[in-house]
């Protein structure tokens, strides 16, 4: 696994935001959207249509080179690589979405609760968070793989739980900032409950940094799934997953070197897309980057 910081660049705190070329991250944001959009399009299209069946076995068309019949050639099972790449987009997006969903679903409420209750509870919860930070996603994936059996769901859950502490940290530091804002005091003075304040005031106001974190985590999850596939802990066949395609293509590096290129490019496009998206969003959400009127 490429050991990307599990908390992502947003982790270093809301005040630490990188700036990318382009005003308000416009160009970066658009580049990210286009790349991610491309993958989403591939995933959606592949629900109804792929040039060939990406899950069957076709002994007659093994390892065909790229050409007019097969745009990107075929693999050792005779499957059209282009079709597999299209269908693989589904798994990549699924893994990213579910992993990030679990991470945010666990981490954000945890972080908000901790941030809203400074003192003992916060200390206690953060210590717990430290412990879960000490179990990185890959370690969890290995252990969960052994407990529940390797597969897409296990990988997604492990990645999700492994990334949750990062979300908790971000949510907590954001919450602590928002808690010192006067509108939270005003809401308390207005007799609003903690739940109301958490949902209506804090969550919307930290959503910017959470979205940034989510988009970065998404890229990390896609890379991690590829790494897990390499270790045999990823999506099992025949469902096409880019990570496994990469792993399978490894054996054909000298026979059909292009095979390793396609899933590699697909992964890079998606990860790059989400990183750019994250950078662009970061710049957009950075209040100091906004033009004052």
């Amino acid at each position, binding site marked *: 696994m490429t050991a*990307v910081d599990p908390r992502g660049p947003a982790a270093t705190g809301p005040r630490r935001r*990188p700036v990318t070329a382009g005003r308000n991250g416009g160009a970066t944001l658009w580049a990210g959207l286009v790349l991610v959009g491309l993958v989403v399009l591939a995933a959606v299209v592949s629900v109804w249509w792929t040039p060939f069946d990406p899950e069957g076995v076709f002994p007659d068309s093994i390892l065909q080179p790229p050409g007019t019949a097969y745009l990107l050639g075929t693999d050792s099972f005779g499957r059209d690589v282009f079709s597999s790449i299209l269908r693989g987009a589904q798994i990549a997006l699924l893994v990213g979405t579910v992993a990030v969903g679990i991470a945010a679903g666990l981490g954000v409420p945890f972080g908000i609760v901790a941030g809203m209750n400074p003192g003992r509870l916060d200390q206690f919860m953060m210590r717990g968070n*430290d412990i879960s930070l000490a179990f990185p996603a890959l370690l969890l994936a290995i252990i969960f793989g052994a407990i529940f059996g390797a597969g897409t769901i296990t990988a997604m859950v492990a990645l999700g739980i492994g990334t949750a502490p990062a979300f908790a940290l971000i949510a907590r530091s954001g919450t602590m900032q928002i808690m010192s804002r006067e509108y939270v005091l005003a809401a308390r003075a207005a007799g609003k409950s903690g739940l109301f304040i958490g949902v209506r005031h804090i969550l919307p106001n930290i959503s910017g940094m959470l979205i940034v974190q989510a988009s970065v985590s998404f890229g990390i999850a896609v890379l991690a799934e590829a790494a897990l596939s390499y270790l045999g802990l990823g999506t099992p066949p025949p469902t096409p997953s880019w990570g496994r395609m990469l792993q399978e293509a490894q054996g054909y590096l000298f026979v059909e070197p292009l095979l390793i290129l396609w899933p590699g490019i697909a992964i890079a496009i998606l990860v790059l897309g989400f990183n750019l998206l994250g950078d662009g969003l970061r710049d957009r959400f950075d209040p100091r980057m906004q033009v004052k009127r």
Partner: protein
Amino acid sequence: MVLVVLRRIGLFAATVVVASIVTFLMLSILPGNAARIALGVQATEADVAAQTKAMGLDRPAVVRYLDWFGHVLVGDFGTSTVSRRAIGPEITDALGITVILVLTSVVLALLFAVPFGILSAVRQRKPDGAILSGISQIGVAVPGFLAGMLLVTVFAVTLRWLPAGGWVDPGDDLGGFLQHLILPAIALGSVQGAVLSRYVRSSVLEVTREDFIRTARAKGLGVGRALFRHGLRNAAVPVMTVLGLQIASLLVGAVVIERVFSLPGLGSLLLDKVALRDLPAVQGIVLVLVVFVLLLNFLVDLAFTVIDPRLRSAS
């Protein structure tokens, strides 16, 4: 002061104990029978039962936990159910390899990331800055094992300059050690370097917008000098957080590179031991990993207090 230190150590110890319980519980529900794996396909049920008893797996979980953790506290990780050797040395050997690999790769990553990140931040609005940051963006997006595989293909298989994998102890043969270290360290370091350079870039950019940099400029320092004299130490703080986290996640994360290069590191050991359901070993490895990460966080915190005087007076 002493009290503060004691409190922190106490807290750390408590964290380790909780982590050990989590580790134990998590692993106690591993499916698969270690006794049967040890005996293989020809064993009878009676053999398996006897073996289970011999391995001490028939005792209640609490007893097993206390027995295990009690011994761990005195430095005894127990005996592997597979290799029948003390687990401690197996872990230290593997940990040594992983730590050397990770640290080397991090040093390489820093050597690349710091100048690269600073340059792409300073030249942010110039085309070359955009190209630099584009390179790191793409570097981040490439799976690390792909980088490793390509390095092997080029430098080991095609050019035959360097070995394709394996490990040589520095004590046995220093030259061989270095040869075997280079490719995996580069493979691991290149992706980390790309990641780090983005953090360096963003935190340098962040610092350049600080008021005290403006103060430095107003004193008559040029952009570069202001950044160098006042910016870098400040920019180092967030980069160090990331570095600490990176090292922590690399201890397990290096397993992929260890597999590509057939290095018997800690992650590899973990995978092997999990496959063999060598529970005492797996527990030991996971605990060592977790404690190592906790320790690392502790050290990063400590490093902050060295860098940042504001934190020093807090204790």
